[in-house]
């Protein structure tokens, strides 16, 4: 069939409501066409929002380019960092992005193992989101180096100095954890795409597209043998990624937990960083999914059920995070450690950044409680706003942990403040631009929903239907 008549074939888009993961009247063909249609839509028929969105994102990318050039020319001094606050936005953003990067693999892997049917139509692009978020995160550890051109010294490679990285340092753990996570996320994402590449290959109208998708599909032909091995490999990947996803943010939290700084030196960090990561991850998935399903009329594939489930996950992880905050503060008081206690006094009212702490509590704990109400969960705009709020809150959480703790540590004489500069902000916004730009390109260029898995959903749907009558 030709690309043109695909839109016509795609069924009327209406949301089947909170208990269905797919709209009615879909068969193998229609899901294929509807999802594939997004990619094969003629360029000019791309929704205008996409163009506008991409344009904005691209401007931010250029902002990043300028900021980074200036950074490399002058040195990290262009940022607001100093002694004692030697880590500023760079690390805050790094942790924030990594956190966001957790939803993808989590949805794909853990929900797969948990056999959650609502995972299917969101896993693909949350995986993509993961990739891009990790890409953004990955920039910062390099950018924030005093001598970024020597970043490769953090890799273990034989050299004429006979020197090696120092594997007791959490930063080296980071190197391994983040690079592993990036690689595995990519593999996972790409593996998931192979059968869909085949689909695209077979649907593609023009030979160029055929060739490209053909190469990417590597000759996948949907043979039962392929499927058997494929599913096994995919299951194993999921099984491996699950502990990985947990380990990565634990390792990131070690950057702080291993240090002695009051406010960093806390054993509860790993679990609550992971929870926080999932929290922010789902928030970001929602932030992206809600507009996209709207623009491409995918309400029948990304249904209210998806949105509600994700809201629930947000609520849950949000509560874990809340517990984390509470326990952190409690332990600080209970430990009786003078410095630990002061770290929290400082965080909550003594220090110059007390307000960030309370905004973060508002964003991460208070506001999300609205999600208890089904009416809120059912209202797409409300969920969208809450998701945004949580994104902000989670960024502030990292700010409070990284910066506020550093401003006042042990010896009062060396206490100091941190004031971000325009370059701090440009770099941060710049990476948001990179993230969105990549996201837009992905949605336009690749099947943003796993087609073959949707077919499975259809299949299961029919099976249960058959059972029904």
């Amino acid at each position, binding site marked *: 069939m030709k690309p043109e008549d695909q839109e016509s074939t795609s069924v009327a888009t209406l949301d089947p409501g909170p208990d269905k993961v797919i709209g009615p009247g879909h068969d193998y063909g229609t899901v294929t066409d509807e999802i594939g249609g997004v990619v094969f839509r003629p360029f000019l028929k791309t929704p205008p929002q996409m163009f506008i969105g991409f344009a904005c994102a691209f401007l931010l990318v250029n902002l990043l380019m300028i900021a980074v050039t200036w950074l490399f020319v002058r040195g990290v001094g262009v940022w607001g960092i100093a002694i004692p606050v030697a880590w500023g936005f760079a690390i805050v953003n790094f942790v924030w992005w990594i956190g966001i990067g957790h939803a993808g693999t989590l949805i794909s892997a853990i929900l797969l193992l948990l056999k959650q049917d609502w995972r299917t139509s969101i896993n693909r692009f949350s995986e993509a989101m993961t990739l891009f978020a990790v890409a953004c995160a990955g920039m910062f550890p390099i950018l924030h180096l005093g001598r970024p051109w020597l970043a490769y010294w953090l890799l273990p490679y034989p050299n004429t100095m006979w020197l090696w990285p120092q594997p007791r340092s959490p930063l080296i753990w980071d190197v391994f954890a983040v690079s592993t996570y990036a690689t595995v996320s990519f593999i996972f994402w790409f593996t998931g795409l192979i059968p869909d590449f085949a689909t695209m290959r077979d649907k593609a109208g023009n030979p160029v597209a055929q060739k490209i998708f*053909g190469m990417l599909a590597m*000759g996948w032909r949907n043979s039962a043998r392929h499927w058997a091995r494929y599913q096994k490999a995919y299951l194993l990947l999921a099984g491996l990624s699950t502990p990985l996803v947990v380990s990565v943010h634990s390792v990131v939290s070690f950057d702080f937990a291993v240090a002695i700084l009051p406010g960093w030196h806390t054993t509860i960090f790993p679990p609550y960083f992971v929870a926080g990561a999932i929290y922010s991850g789902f928030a970001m998935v929602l932030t992206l999914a809600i507009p996209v399903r709207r623009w491409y009329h995918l309400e029948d594939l990304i249904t209210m059920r998806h949105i509600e489930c994700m809201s629930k996950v947000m609520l849950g992880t949000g509560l874990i995070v809340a517990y984390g905050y509470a326990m952190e503060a409690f332990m600080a008081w209970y430990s009786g450690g003078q410095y630990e206690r002061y770290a929290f006094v400082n965080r909550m009212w003594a220090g110059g950044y007390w307000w960030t702490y309370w905004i973060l509590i508002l964003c991460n704990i208070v506001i999300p409680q609205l999600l208890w109400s089904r009416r809120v969960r059912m209202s797409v705009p409300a969920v969208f706003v809450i998701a945004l709020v949580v994104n902000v809150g989670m960024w502030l959480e990292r700010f409070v942990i990284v910066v506020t703790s550093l401003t006042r540590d042990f010896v009062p004489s060396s206490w100091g403040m941190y004031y971000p500069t325009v370059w701090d902000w440009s770099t941060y916004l710049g990476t948001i631009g990179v993230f969105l730009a990549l996201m837009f390109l992905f949605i336009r260029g690749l099947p943003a929903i796993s087609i073959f898995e949707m077919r499975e959903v259809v299949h299961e749907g029919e099976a249960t239907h058959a059972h029904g009558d």
Partner: protein
Amino acid sequence: MAQIFHRSSNSLAKVTIVAMLLIVGVVVLAAYKINAGSFITDVDVAPGQPVPFSHKHHVGDDGIDCRYCHTSVETSSFAGIPPTETCMGCHSQIWANAELLEPVRASLRTGKSLEWARVHDLPDFVYFNHSIHINKGIGCSTCHGRVDQMPLTYKVNTLYMQWCIGCHRNPAQFVRPRDQVFNIAYQYPDNQLELGIRLVKEYKIQSLTDCVTCHR
């Protein structure tokens, strides 16, 4: 649909994969080779000098002792490059008018120093001390090679950190009796290791691999 790819593309695809891996390997290997080669290290490369000074002639043929010119090698971190006077000490008598030596005479006339190109040049963040090595029985030729056979001076060792560490970890391989330090033609005996171990004890040589031994 008809086939998108030709039959041959199957083998082509597989070959490509193998080729890729090979290329990566080759590139890495090349990088290491180049880094160890004299293009980077200047080993065996004699830089141009204002005067084509020949250690071969002065040391090999005339048998002048290292310390005659490198006076501070036993006392200072810097071995010392002879002032023009020292050259002219002899060359006011012999080769007094040699065309070759004009720059030297000019230097003495004008009081403007000769500008020699450094052959053994450590990075500025490396602090090397000649005197202590000499005093601990490390011979000139151990690092500088047989300068008595060099018409133009070049370096024989990379001076890479791994090269320094190699000796610092196990000095016994290279120490020689103190009286042999300036013997440019010194041959290590076959029992070097046991001799070395003895000398290390005798000279109280420590194997210093602390960073601050060289970097501060």
